[in-house]
């Protein structure tokens, strides 16, 4: 489907739905213009995989959900349909910058949704600031979020920093170490990319402080497709815990290689991709015990309902990390609009100070950041469940050692 036909279809949808509504609610609403929402996300290039799993499906799902319910509710109670304008940033920051300029100054959209990824969100941040749009960066992991929130006061950072995830993991492993289920040796590999480096930098001191010893600590380049050498080194290192701060191709590749080698450490942790819905397939139907970044409260009815809607709309369940956060950020936007309307300044203030009811529970931002997040999850009984922070409502106890493949 091309963008043109999708836009056309949405417009038709908007018209029919709002005329149906007019019958029920009276006369004024039928005349309302739709709210235009634009976004530039990677359809092609290196970021397309991540955007295709986490960002685009949730944007489309949310737009459908809102329009099916009659549109966005305005403070005066009227409803306006959403019309979407979408561009491909081709995974290039130059194209992204231009696309946002186009959305803001050419298409003059009412709201802009952020792109996928840490780097893209940073490239977009000055433009959101210049044009005054609030930016709900739901797929951006950065330890510098507090500084960015200061610099651009309408930017909101929803996914924590590398430091959070690293210390969250160390906390979980520390529990196992104290319980005597694992030794104090850890083999860790990290992808040579902003994400991997942030995590490993934070993890090294955290591990040491908790009494662990990093017996194997290597970085591998983005694009590595063969992990046999790395995993055999990790296996012979004697560590009970294997930790990979990896991206999806690496997470998948290492899982498969570990299975074929019969490498069964007590803790097997992978980075991004471990919480993807395809992971159980990648792991040959044996994902149980594998830990990864993220997690959801799998027992919460709101999350279960969200998973069902997502599966029905997209054809597969969402990933269990940033997808729910992305959807929740859109719910925040929706509720903020209902309270203060489309004025960008009022909207930003409401997002910063208000309390919102979302699929991940009640949300209130602290200093423009979402801090109430899951740092570690684990596959248990075929579902990816949050295990850390252990004191957060909905956390389950980690299974260590991991059952053999």
């Amino acid at each position, binding site marked *: 489907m*091309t*963008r*043109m036909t999708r836009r056309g279809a949405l417009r038709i949808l908007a018209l029919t739905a709002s005329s149906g509504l007019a019958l029920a609610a009276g006369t004024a609403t039928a005349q309302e213009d739709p709210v235009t929402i634009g976004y530039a996300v990677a*359809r*092609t*290039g*290196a970021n397309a995989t991540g955007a295709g799993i986490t960002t685009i499906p949730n944007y489309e799902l949310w737009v459908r959900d809102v329009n099916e319910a009659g549109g966005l509710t305005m403070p005066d109670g009227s409803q306006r349909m959403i019309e979407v304008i979408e*561009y*491909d940033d*081709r*995974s*290039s*920051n*130059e*194209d992204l*910058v*231009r*696309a946002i*300029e*186009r959305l*803001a*100054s*050419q298409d003059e959209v009412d709201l802009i949704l952020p792109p996928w990824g*840490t*780097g893209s969100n*940073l*490239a977009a*941040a*000055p433009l959101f600031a210049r*044009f005054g749009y609030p930016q709900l960066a739901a797929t951006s992991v950065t330890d510098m979020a507090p500084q960015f929130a200061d*610099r651009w006061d309408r930017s909101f950072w929803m996914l924590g920093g590398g430091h959070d995830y690293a210390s969250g993991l160390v906390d979980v492993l520390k529990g196992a170490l104290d319980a005597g289920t694992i030794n104090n040796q850890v083999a860790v590999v990290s992808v*040579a*990319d*902003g994400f*991997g*480096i*942030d995590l490993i*930098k934070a993890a090294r001191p955290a591990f040491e402080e908790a009494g662990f010893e990093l017996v194997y600590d290597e*970085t591998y*380049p*983005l694009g590595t497709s063969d992990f046999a050498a790395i995993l055999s080194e990790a296996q012979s290192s004697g560590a009970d815990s294997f930790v990979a701060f990896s991206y999806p191709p690496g997470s998948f590749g290492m899982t498969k290689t570990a299975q074929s080698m019969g490498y069964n450490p007590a803790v097997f942790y992978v980075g991004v991709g471990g919480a993807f819905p395809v992971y159980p397939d990648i792991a040959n139907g044996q994902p149980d015990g594998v830990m990864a970044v993220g997690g959801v409260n799998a027992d919460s009815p709101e999350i279960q309902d969200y998973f069902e809607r997502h599966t029905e709309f997209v054809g597969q369940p969402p990933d269990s990390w940033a997808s729910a956060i992305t959807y929740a950020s859109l719910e925040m936007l929706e509720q903020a609009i209902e309270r203060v309307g489309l004025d960008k300044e009022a909207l930003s203030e409401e997002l910063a100070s208000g309390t919102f009811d979302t699929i991940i529970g009640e949300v209130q931002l602290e200093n423009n950041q979402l801090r109430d997040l899951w740092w570690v999850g684990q596959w248990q009984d075929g579902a990816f469940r949050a295990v850390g922070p252990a004191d957060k409502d909905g956390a389950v106890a980690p299974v260590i050692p991991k059952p053999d493949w």
Partner: protein
Amino acid sequence: MTRLLLPLAGLVVLAALPGFVSEYGLGLMIGAVTYVTLASAWALFSGYTRYISLATVAFYGTGAYVVAVLNEVLPYPLVLLVAALIGGAMALVVGLSTLRLAGVYFVIFTFGLSELVRQLITWYEVNVTGTLGRYIFLDISARGIYWQMLALAAVTIGLTAWIHRRPLGLALRVVGDDETVAAHSGINLARTKLIAFVLSSVILTLAGAIVSPRWVYVEPSIVFNPTVSFLTVIMALLGGANRLVGPALGAVPLFLTFEWLSANFPDTYSIFMGLLFIGVVFALPEGVLAGVDRLRARKLRAAA
């Protein structure tokens, strides 16, 4: 005199345009002028010598990365100077080691050069500095970037025109036709190719440095985007790489076409680019300008 006046007047008009367009219009103009610069700088070396370089982004990305590393340490003009020096030094090393070889080895080497540079920078950052991902918080407006890039484009085309009328230009054309004849006519092959390659690379590096403040966040995997190299080649070839304004004439329409495609047919973008490449090689091996010339010549002959 008019030969100089017309381009100057055009330049003034182009420089004044940002006052009359939207932000997006300005963004488009920055993109177009950037590719004009890249394609022209590429052609400065590859157009005449026919040594096809697939490494544009190795230099372009290096320029951006230098700014990312130094933007908080040095004043901006000095950062640009350092970027130019680093780009030149890199070109010198690459040129000295590969330009003595047959053209095909040069192509293969440049084919992987940006990937190599990306890995080396990544490795260095990971193992030595321990930071990956850098920020560019420079207070340079989109207009400022546009004017700088426009100036660089003008300098590039002007430099090409000047070189064309100097012994170096003649030497480059001879090298492109027949290196053996060139050598036996007294042309120092290595030096001729090296000078042109370094000049071209310095401009490519500067282009990356100038445009980088628009990206804010820079990471090796972001700045070394191979598509930039490929687009540059196809733009220069389409217009005619051995003509002065050929690369510019190829760059502007292609850039706008790709912009339109990415907005409307993001999925088929790469198919279109491939077909265009093949089409140019088969139908217009010397570029559109030469094709127009041929057509005109045929008409003249038919008329006579």
